[in-house]
């Protein structure tokens, strides 16, 4: 018997095992929304903005490993998703985003709320398609889920014209799909892997650089085994943080622009760099000519195009991280790396990650408070200084997940991502570490958090500035704080060089904000209050809590490497 497109849509989601959709209604999706009303299997979460909607789906997907499903209307509903889709594309988060579209016959007529969303998102989705015939609907939805979750995951956009949703047609939803142009890499080239192993085995100063691919491939355990058996120190990228528990004796820290001193020097000094699941982003390499200058480089990545793009490597291997590491573990034998490990530890002692402890509350103290308060759960961050402090000081173990916007660096990501993660993991504590700038970009999601019963804990580091840019202005632009002071008003002097005692009050009052939504608000001004505030927040299970930490405006993220410089050239103080 034939069924309508909207019925097949819901059936497809049910067959895909979808339990949650992040959806925002509008003229071109009212029919599928109406169909969702009639069923109980799938929960519909209503965010307050479509950008946040995508970030919520990202938080959901990253914390569960499942595909995040999104549903928005045509036109502005669709264009509002663009930043989120780009974020998911960059960080390889599996999403399927359905966008409503005007009826087929109206496409191209500049109809009300018509945009070419497939065209607009072509370079920021793994795949995008407009369903042009009802006959293809089932196959396309199947393809979308398959493409989103396999290989290197990513967002897929399916544009659903209104008439397709209403048209009767085949009720069948295919169980599998074969796409001739899409065959994700499944094996691993053993010959290449042997070459890689020989190289590591012969190395005096081997180093593992683990990227986000290790986490995407669920290969943490295999990585730990390899590092432990062969006694190789490990550094991570921002996205790879958590690949090895941060307390592990072989874990040095993050490398890159705001990496740990010892980690960056280790990259510069190693003789074999075993890199896995990283695309050698410029924030990791700095000046390419001086990246790992003494090392032979092994590079394992599932994406052929990630290999030998930024860094020319000696042994390229296209493979899934877990498969490759499993194979290496079969051969792995202990190495003597004692001197090399000692050398790295000495480097770390020379320039440890440490902020002053003599006057007032520092971001490090906040992070340490969070570390002490949570030994399990999910931590999300926004983008900016607080994010870098989190990557530097937050400790991770097997029971803690870290979710951050690494590739695109999307301000406004952290809070909705936390809400999405909490919706997916109601039994886990979810902490969002954010800044006063980024939080304001999507703080309307407090309504979603309340409505969807997602009591997340927001740790808001308020330094009253867009701190990351302010830091650059402070260090490289003669303290000309153009457009970074969030207290600034028209009454301020034109050439302000920083707080002067006569500054206007900060807006908004985040405590009043929390109250307005029925959330809890706690303001922390001194380091002695950190632990109690976090304990209080943990005790609230009825609504989210905003803990506002008032930190100093001139706190810097250090060490740092200025863009384009070699990673060994770090600004330490």
């Amino acid at each position, binding site marked *: 018997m034939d069924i309508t497109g909207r019925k097949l849509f819901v059936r497809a989601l049910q067959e895909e095992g979808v339990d949650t959709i992040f959806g925002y209604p509008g003229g071109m999706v009212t029919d599928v929304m109406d169909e969702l009303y009639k069923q109980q299997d799938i929960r519909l979460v209503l965010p307050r903005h479509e950008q946040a909607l995508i970030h919520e789906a990202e938080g959901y997907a990253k914390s569960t490993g499942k595909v995040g499903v999104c549903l928005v209307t045509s036109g502005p509903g669709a264009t509002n998703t663009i930043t989120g889709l780009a974020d998911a594309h960059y960080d390889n988060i599996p999403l399927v985003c359905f966008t409503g579209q005007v009826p087929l016959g109206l496409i191209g007529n500049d109809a009300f709320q018509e945009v070419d969303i*497939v*065209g607009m998102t*072509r370079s920021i989705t793994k*795949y995008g*398609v407009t369903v042009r015939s009802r006959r293809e609907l089932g196959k396309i939805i199947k393809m979308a889920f398959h493409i989103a979750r396999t290989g290197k995951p990513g967002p897929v956009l399916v544009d659903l014209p209104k008439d397709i949703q209403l048209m009767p047609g085949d009720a069948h939803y295919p169980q599998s799909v074969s796409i*001739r142009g*899409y065959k994700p890499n499944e094996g691993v080239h053993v010959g290449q892997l042997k070459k890689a192993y020989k190289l590591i085995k012969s190395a005096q100063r081997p180093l593992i650089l683990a990227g986000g691919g290790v986490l995407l491939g669920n290969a943490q355990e295999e990585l730990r085994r390899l590092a432990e058996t062969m006694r190789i120190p490990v550094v991570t990228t921002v996205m790879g943080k958590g690949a090895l528990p941060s307390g592990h004796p072989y874990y040095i820290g993050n490398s890159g622009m705001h990496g740990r001193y010892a980690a960056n020097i280790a990259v510069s000094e190693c003789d074999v760099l075993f890199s896995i699941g990283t695309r050698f982003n410029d924030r990791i390499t700095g000046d390419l000519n001086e990246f790992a200058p003494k090392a032979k480089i092994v590079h394992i990545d599932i994406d*052929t*195009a990630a290999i030998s*793009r930024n860094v020319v490597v000696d042994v390229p291997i296209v493979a899934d991280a877990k498969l490759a590491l499993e194979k290496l573990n079969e051969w792995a034998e202990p190495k003597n790396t004692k001197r090399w490990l000692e050398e790295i530890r000495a480097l770390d002692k020379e320039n440890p990650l440490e902020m002053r402890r003599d006057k007032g509350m520092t971001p490090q103290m906040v992070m340490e408070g969070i570390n002490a308060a949570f030994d399990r759960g999910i931590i999300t961050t926004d983008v900016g200084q607080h994010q870098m402090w989190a990557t530097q000081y937050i400790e991770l173990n097997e029971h803690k997940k870290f979710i951050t916007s690494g590739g695109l660096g999307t301000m406004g990501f952290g809070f909705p991502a936390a809400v999405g993660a909490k919706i997916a993991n109601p039994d886990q504590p979810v902490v969002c570490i954010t800044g006063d700038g980024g939080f304001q970009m999507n703080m309307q999601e407090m309504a979603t958090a309340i409505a969807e019963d997602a009591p997340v804990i927001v740790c808001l580091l308020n330094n009253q500035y867009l701190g990351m840019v302010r830091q650059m202005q402070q260090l490289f632009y003669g303290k000309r704080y153009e457009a970074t002071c969030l207290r600034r008003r028209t009454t301020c002097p034109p050439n302000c060089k920083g707080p002067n005692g006569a500054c206007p009050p900060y807006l908004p009052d985040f405590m009043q904000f929390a109250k307005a939504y029925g959330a809890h608000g706690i303001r922390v001004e001194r380091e002695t209050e950190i632990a109690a505030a976090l304990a209080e927040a943990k005790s609230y299970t009825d609504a989210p809590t905003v803990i506002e930490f008032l930190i100093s405006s001139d706190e810097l993220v250090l060490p740092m490497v200025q863009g384009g410089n070699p990673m060994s050239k770090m600004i330490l103080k």
Partner: protein
Amino acid sequence: MKNRWIALYVENDVGVLAKVSGLFSGKSYNLQSLTVGTTEDETVSRMTICVASDDITFEQIKKQLNRMVEVIKVIDLTNVPLHMKEILFAKVLRCTTADKEEVFQIAQVFDVQVADIGKDSVLLECKLTERRNNELIALLRSKFRHIEIVRGGAVAIESISTSCR
């Protein structure tokens, strides 16, 4: 930087050309020419693409193309024996009788067809290699002030036993 050639089999679907050409503009690859048409299988189109790039960029271009869902196969034609031709129309305008005479001679030498003729103009229809077409244009430019050129971009297929590029 040198010119390299790719044959690209893609799904014959809406938006695929935009996606492929968008890759070149989005990533600042230097696209020289791109032609596209359906193959013996009407669900598949084949593109002939010429890019100017260094070795590393060219490798990257092939990988980026390969990972598109709509791309079925990427073939590097750079060092493959093949037959490659480009269609070109050249109109010579405001000709005197002597000019026409000369255009005919050129047509004969280049072995191209005179497709159309009017009171003071001649149309040449050329199906030559790209290089030969360039030479023809250079020659016409040097002899005549008023010319009009339309080029189609190269189409290539792998050789059976002889080759021509």
